[in-house]
């Protein structure tokens, strides 16, 4: 392995490219037409333009494999999202004679279809959430098909009981997932979940799980190499979510103890072993107040929140991915968790307006710095946030000796974070950190909805703030043109390091 094509964009592309550089590997970035000059293209040894704008460019597996061949890359790292959990893409990469930096296509398939995953896990002795797989394979949009799916869903729902979760079998990241609290809501929820799943995954199949209230979302990081070793690297608590999107993650979980960690870790290793997993993966569980835990799903890729595990375990997960993909044994010692790490996701969204995605220029963008602060991003001051892509701009990670110190460090970091020109959730996150549930670590997945039922209200500016604003109003409007980077679809930019 000498040169890795990173089939992604934004912060995770930058993260992987830096890991390649540090591993002595060349890196190849790809970019859509509307992302020429983006940070990840500059960090890479070489960058190749894709045809088309927006996410579809990054979803074109054939074009990406062609780019790998044209640029001399001999391996492909998919990051997360996009093609990372597409078994067909993994297979095509391997058939093109390239190294696929991820688990086998078979493992992706068995875990990617959530229904199959449920069954596999049950057979491996891993506890799953009470629920019901549906054998219906119809994925069409026709009303008659829909009515027949609805009938079987209604029947299954009666067995599982309300409230329940309707989940797309091909789903992930909250897409194609709907809470259903009564039979009356079922039809609308089913229609909407199937449509979202069809749009996102081209597969409208759904299944049902009992809705576990006040449960925690706790996931276990696993790592497996091609030499028969599979280990877990402790857990991440990701209970603070909004619309099933994680917002705040921490490691270790405040709900954890050594015995529970050993049991959940063993379950996660069993889950990975059941599909002959190789590489970095995450086994997600719901953890109930009484300590019962249930398999939720397995993410067969690097996770957004991987840095908090890196902080407390001292393991560089992306470096291990590269090492494992090149056929070496992992270099991971005994598990020892050091201190406490927290990640918050910085979204371009408006918490005071139903968290709708926001766009605009990053006219001022000064991320926090200092000891114990890690900031992973794919943007810099002067860039423009477009509506085409996922609104996650960055991940802010802190590591400190204790949970209390980590919370204090995160508050300090958020206070220091200056973003002007695009609305973000920074102020909302800062308020979130003061909630007693967050301070005490008694978090659960519906916390945000329950604490902010009417949304979040931004602070009223002080008189002094208005005075400064009035002076700033007399200044010329800040130029917000983005970098005049090359925009031809076939141009490629690169930086060569010595």
């Amino acid at each position, binding site marked *: 392995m000498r040169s890795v094509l990173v089939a992604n964009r934004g912060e995770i592309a930058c993260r992987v490219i830096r890991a390649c550089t540090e591993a002595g590997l060349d890196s190849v970035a790809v970019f859509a037409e509307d992302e020429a000059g983006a940070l990840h293209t500059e960090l890479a040894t070489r960058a190749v333009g894709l045809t088309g704008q927006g996410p579809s460019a990054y979803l074109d597996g054939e074009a990406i494999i062609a780019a790998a061949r044209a640029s001399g890359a001999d391996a492909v790292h998919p990051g997360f999202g996009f093609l990372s959990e597409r078994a067909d893409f993994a297979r095509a990469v391997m058939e093109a004679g390239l190294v696929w930096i991820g688990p086998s296509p078979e493992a992706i398939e068995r875990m990617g279809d959530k229904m199959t995953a449920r069954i596999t896990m049950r057979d491996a002795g891993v506890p799953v959430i009470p629920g019901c797989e549906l054998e219906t394979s119809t994925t069409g949009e026709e009303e008659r098909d829909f009515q027949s799916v609805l009938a079987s869903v209604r029947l299954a729902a009666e067995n599982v009981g309300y409230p329940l979760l309707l989940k797309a079998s091909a789903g992930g990241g909250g897409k194609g997932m709907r809470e259903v609290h009564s039979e009356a809501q079922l039809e609308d929820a089913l229609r909407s979940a199937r449509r979202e799943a069809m749009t996102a995954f081209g597969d409208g199949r759904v299944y049902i799980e009992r809705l576990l209230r006040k449960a925690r979302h706790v996931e276990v990081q696993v790592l497996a190499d091609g030499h028969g070793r599979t280990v877990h690297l402790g857990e991440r608590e990701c209970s603070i979510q909004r619309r099933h999107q994680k917002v705040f993650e921490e490691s270790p979980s405040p709900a954890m103890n050594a015995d529970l960690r050993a049991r959940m870790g063993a379950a996660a290793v069993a889950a990975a072993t059941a599909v002959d997993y190789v590489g970095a993966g995450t086994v997600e569980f719901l953890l109930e107040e009484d300590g019962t835990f249930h398999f939720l799903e397995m993410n067969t890729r690097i996770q957004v929140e991987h840095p908090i595990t890196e902080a407390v375990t001292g393991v560089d997960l992306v470096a291990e991915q590269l090492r494992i993909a090149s056929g070496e044994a992992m270099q991971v010692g005994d598990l020892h968790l050091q201190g406490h790490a927290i990640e918050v996701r910085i979204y371009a969204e408006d918490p005071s307006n139903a968290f709708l995605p926001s766009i605009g220029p990053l006219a001022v963008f000064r991320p926090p710095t200092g000891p114990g602060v890690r900031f992973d991003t794919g943007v810099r001051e002067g860039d423009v946030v477009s*509506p085409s892509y996922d609104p996650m701009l960055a991940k802010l990670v802190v590591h400190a000796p204790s949970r209390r110190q980590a919370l204090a460090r995160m508050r300090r970091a958020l206070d220091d974070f200056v973003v002007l020109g695009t609305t973000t959730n920074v102020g909302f996150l800062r308020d979130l950190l003061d909630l007693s549930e967050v301070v005490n670590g008694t978090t659960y997945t519906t916390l945000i909805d329950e604490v902010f039922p009417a949304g979040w209200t931004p602070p009223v500016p002080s008189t002094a703030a208005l005075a400064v604003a009035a002076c700033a109003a007399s200044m010329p409007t800040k130029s917000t043109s983005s970098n005049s980077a090359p925009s031809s679809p076939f141009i490629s930019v690169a930086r060569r390091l010595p």
Partner: protein
Amino acid sequence: MVEFRAREGSVEVQPIPNDGGWVIGSLRVTRLDDVRWSFEEDGAPPRIAYAVRIRDDVWLHVDGRVHRLNLVEAGARGSTEEGGCTAPMPGAVLEVLVDVGDEVLAGSPLVVMEAMKMEHRVLAPANGTVAAVHVEVGARVQQGQTLIDLDSNTTEDSAQR
């Protein structure tokens, strides 16, 4: 005189140029560079803020918080639409749930949009009757584009609620 839209009504501020900076009441404001400002109140030590003007907004970071303040330009008032339901962001229309003449209640969904791979519902801002539908399924719309015109119910009705 600078006027900002506030949660209710507006706020007027009159900075007076003074000795390379400005004075507003007991406050003194100085510009440090393109984006950094210093301000001090009588007796208190100066503090730092970040502020830039971008078109009709001033964006401000002070005391760890960001504020976006909308400038009211002379003669530009009343531009907010009454009874118009506009696209909250750029995206595609997935479903139009109402027809002209439909009576709707405040909060009921009118249009389903898709943006950034997520569905979003545009809700009725008040009780009313659909006067016009400006988009169809599949249309790509810009932020702020009017999707639906609503005739609000009479003031008497509203007052009774």
